Structures are given as structure tokens and as C-alpha cells.
């Protein structure tokens, strides 16, 4: 089933902490996806910092990963989530080199995300676990969006948890509620083009498809529209980049999502109740229709 939900502030000024709103929204959709919870956070970049998330099959591999990251660039801040490492490092090199270096450590270690603006956090279970590990509630930036996962197609672990990214292509994360039925066909065609897949999750096809379409010259919006036609299945997904985020619905409108928008913010959730518990207000909501793409600029 899965649930998606989050909050975006249109300006720096806001009345409630972004992380606290996201926490409440995700807590409200816990029952839609109790297996794991993940969020994408947007940060201002004041220099060379890179946000890195690393999945470790072996929870005790964290120290090795952190050591490697400290050699590649200097660590500003890091948390070993015992299975998922989150780090902010000063790094001016190519993202692809960093991914290669980390993944050379061990076959059980893979990079979940790298971003100049976007940070991905994941944890098993509900948002309370994620918050206990990574202090989601303390986040007070402009964008926090997440997914509560009900695993159907791949294992319940950090690697297969969402949000998912196209890895070395930094600053693109997606959160997908639904299923992609032509996943195997698409995956083999993208693999032939040279794209790496690190998970068995059908949702991983989405960021790779978007990156591929954009590298062929499509705009972000065009890539999203193309994805609706190329992906077979039922889905509502959220795509976040360094300068915008989008909500995309399949041609059947079979997966729920409601949106509330004011002059100050945009909030959405799979469930209207969680949205209102999140923003602590009885806001008017609307539901995007079949085959619709909605984009909000940062």
C-alpha cells in the first residue's frame, strides 16, 4: 500500500518546524506502510557540502564507511544509523568517484543518495524510529517529504527502502506509492544502457527513467509526463530535485493523495486525516486527477 506525505514551505519564514509537521504527517500514514520510513530533506548549500546516505547490509560496517568518507572529504556531521549512514561532508570532487570509492569497500555497502541540496534518511519501522535515530523533528528547512513503506516486491531492509535516487546523479529523489508492472522489462533496457541498479525495488526505475529522459534533452516536466506513459501500473509518486518538487499520478488515479496549498506552504499526504494532523489545521484539500503532473518551484 505505502503512504506518501510531506510539507514544503514557499519561503524561509514559517510558523511550525518543518520536521515536526513531516513527523506528524508520516505518523498519520504509518498504517499504510509500517515496514520502513524514509524522508527527503532539502538544505541550503553554503559551500561544498555533500549529503551522503549509505546502506550497509551489515550494521557494524558504519565505522568503515565513515572512515572512507573522512578520507574522501572532511566530515562535518555524521550519524551511524546501524544499517544506514548519514553524513554531511565537504567534498568538491565528482559524485560518481565518491560512489565508486564507497562501494569498493564491500559488496554489502551501497550508496543510497548523494546530494548538494537533498538528503535522504531511512529507517526500519515507523517515523518514531527514524526520528529517534536522525532527529527529524529538529529539521527546520523548507522541504521534508517522505514515504511509509509497505513492502510488496522486495526485501524489508535499508537498501530496498525509499526514498530512492539515481545515485551518482545527485539531487533527485523519488517516493513512490504503487507498483510498476513492466519493471523487469524496463530495468533490463536501462541496464543495457549502462545504468546501475542497487535495489530490487520496482520504484528504482523511476529516478533512473527521469534522469535518462533528461539526459536525452527532456525538461523535468516532460520527463515526468513521459514517465506516466512509459510506466505500467498504478502509482502516485513524488519527485524532488534541487529546485522543485513534483506530484505525479498515473492514468487511472488509483493511488490516493490529497494536497493543501496556501500562500505559505504546500502539504500533501496519501490520507487527508494525516495531512490535517500534520499541519494542525483544518485546511481545504484537493485531489490531483488521473495522469496529472503538478510541479512546485523552490
Amino acid at each position, binding site marked *: 500500500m505505502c503512504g506518501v506525505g510531506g510539507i514544503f514551505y514557499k519561503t524561509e519564514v514559517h510558523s511550525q518546524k518543518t520536521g515536526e509537521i513531516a513527523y506528524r504527517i508520516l505518523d498519520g500514514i504509518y498504517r499504510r506502510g509500517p515496514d520502513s520510513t524514509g524522508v527527503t530533506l532539502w538544505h541550503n548549500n553554503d559551500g561544498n557540502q555533500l549529503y551522503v546516505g549509505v546502506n550497509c547490509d551489515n550494521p557494524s560496517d558504519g565505522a568503515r564507511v565513515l572512515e572512507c568518507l573522512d578520507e574522501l572529504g572532511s566530515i562535518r556531521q555524521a550519524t551511524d544509523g546501524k544499517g544506514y549512514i548519514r553524513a554531511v561532508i565537504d567534498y568538491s570532487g565528482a559524485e560518481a568517484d565518491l560512489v565508486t570509492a564507497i562501494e569498493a569497500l564491500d559488496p554489502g555497502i551501497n550508496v543510497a543518495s548523494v546530494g548538494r541540496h537533498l538528503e535522504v534518511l531511512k529507517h526500519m519501522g515507523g517515523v518514531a524510529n527514524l526520528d529517534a535515530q536522525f532527529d527529524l523533528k529538529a529539521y527546520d528547512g523548507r522541504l521534508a517529504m517522505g514515504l511509509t513503506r509497505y513492502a510488496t516486491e522486495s526485501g524489508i531492509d535499508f537498501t530496498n527502502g525509499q526514498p530512492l535516487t539515481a545515485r551518482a546523479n545527485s539531487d533527485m529523489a523519488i517516493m513512490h506509492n504503487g507498483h510498476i508492472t513492466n519493471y523487469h522489462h524496463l530495468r533490463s533496457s536501462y541496464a543495457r544502457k549502462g545504468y546501475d541498479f542497487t535495489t530490487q525495488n520496482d520504484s528504482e526505475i523511476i529516478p533512473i527513467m527521469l534522469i535518462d529522459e533528461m539526459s536525452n534533452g527532456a525538461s523535468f516536466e516532460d520527463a515526468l509526463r513521459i514517465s506516466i506513459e512509459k510506466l505500467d501500473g498504478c502509482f502516485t509518486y513524488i519527485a524532488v530535485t534541487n529546485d522543485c518538487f513534483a506530484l505525479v499520478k498515473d492514468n487511472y*488515479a488509483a493511488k490516493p493523495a*490529497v494536497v493543501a496549498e496556501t500562500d505559505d506552504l504546500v502539504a500533501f499526504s496519501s490520507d*487527508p486525516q494525516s495531512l490535517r494532523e500534520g499541519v494542525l489545521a483544518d485546511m481545504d484539500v484537493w485531489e490531483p486527477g488521473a495522469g496529472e503532473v503538478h510541479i512546485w518551484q523552490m
Partner: protein
Amino acid sequence: MANVETLTINCSDKETREINNIIRKAADDGVKQVEILNTRARHNIGVGILKPIHLIYRGHVGYYTVGLCDNVTAEIHGSAGWGVGDNLLAGEVVVEGNAASSAAPSLRGGRIVVKGDGGPRAGIYLKSGDVIIGGNAGYMSGFMMQNGRMVICGNAAKGLGDSMYQGQIWLGGEADEMGSGVAQVDPEDGELDAVLALLEKHKMKAPKAFKKLQSDKSLWNFNKHDFAAWKDAL
């Protein structure tokens, strides 16, 4: 409780089942109406009520509001989540705001009025009764309707009335694309007046004109020569 005219329920401190039990007991006791406060988009509030009562929801409601009810009337002062009025047998539900996916699914009788927009699949599997939408209707509205009447004052998204068996759809605006097996027909005497009277009763603005749509019966019987039509029909 029989001498109580209006019972007020505050949802904030109550479980869903407790709220429904209070409403059910009030209906059993002959209470005329129940005012429901702090609904905050909660799901399944006012479900399985089988005796006459009037429900007033002060705020937005979640999924399956007034679901599986008989002889219940309700006014929702806000928007409704998925499946409002699911399988209503008789009565009337008026949603002042918008309704999300599958408004009035499998309606068996009575009337569901949505003054704002309806989401995808409004009136899906409609069996009898009326569904009225003041604004626009979403994708595949009236899908597989078997009888009854659907009135859409605004526009409709793709697949309007797809695979409908019987019944009528009255469309004020335009459909992005008609569903399979739907044809526009001329209204019979008095039909349009009845639709307009319904709108007036609910103080809803009627569009300039209405198109009457119904099944063209092309999907009633399988014909292998029309295989292409069947391939497109969902």
C-alpha cells in the same frame, strides 16, 4: 434520549467505534439530529446507521462517511474523502465542499449531492438514486453504472460513463473523452425539468445546457466482430 432534539458529539476524545455506537443509539432512541464536531478528516464516522436520523458534520470528513446507511440524511460542512455515502440505501448526503475518489459508490437509493468537485470514479457502480456534482467530475465517473441518475454541472475527465449498463448521465460541460459504450441522446419530456428542479432544490447553479448521456448498448452483448471495442473497454 428520546426527548433530545439535537445530540452533539465531540470526536476529539472518542474512538471511531464509540462515535458510531453513539449515533446508532441516538437513531434507535429517536433523536432527530446529531451534530458532529472536530471531525478533522477522520474516516468511517457515521457508518452502519440503519434508522432515520439527520447528521451534521462540522468540518472535513475522511473515507466512507455515511457508508452502509439507510434512511440517513446528512450535511457535511467541508470536503469528504473517498467513498462518501458508500452503498446508501435511502436518504440524502449533501457535501458542501469537494468529494475525493469514488463518491457515492454502489449507491442503491437516495441522493448524494457534492456542491464542489467530484474526484475520479464518482458514481462508480451506481445502482439507483441520484448523484449530483456541482463542479467538475474526475476520471471514469459513472463507471459501470447500472441505473440511477448522475448530474454533472461542470466538465468531466476522460472515460465518462465507461461501460455503463443503464441509467442517465446529465453533463453540463464537456467530457475530455467519453467512456466506451456511451451515447448522447435527446431527453424525453419533463426529464430536464426534473434535473433543473433538483438543482434548484439544493440552491445549485445550473449550467446553460445539459447533454443527456446513456448506454448505447454496444457492450451489452459480446460480438466478436466488434472485438476492437471490447479491447478498449476496461
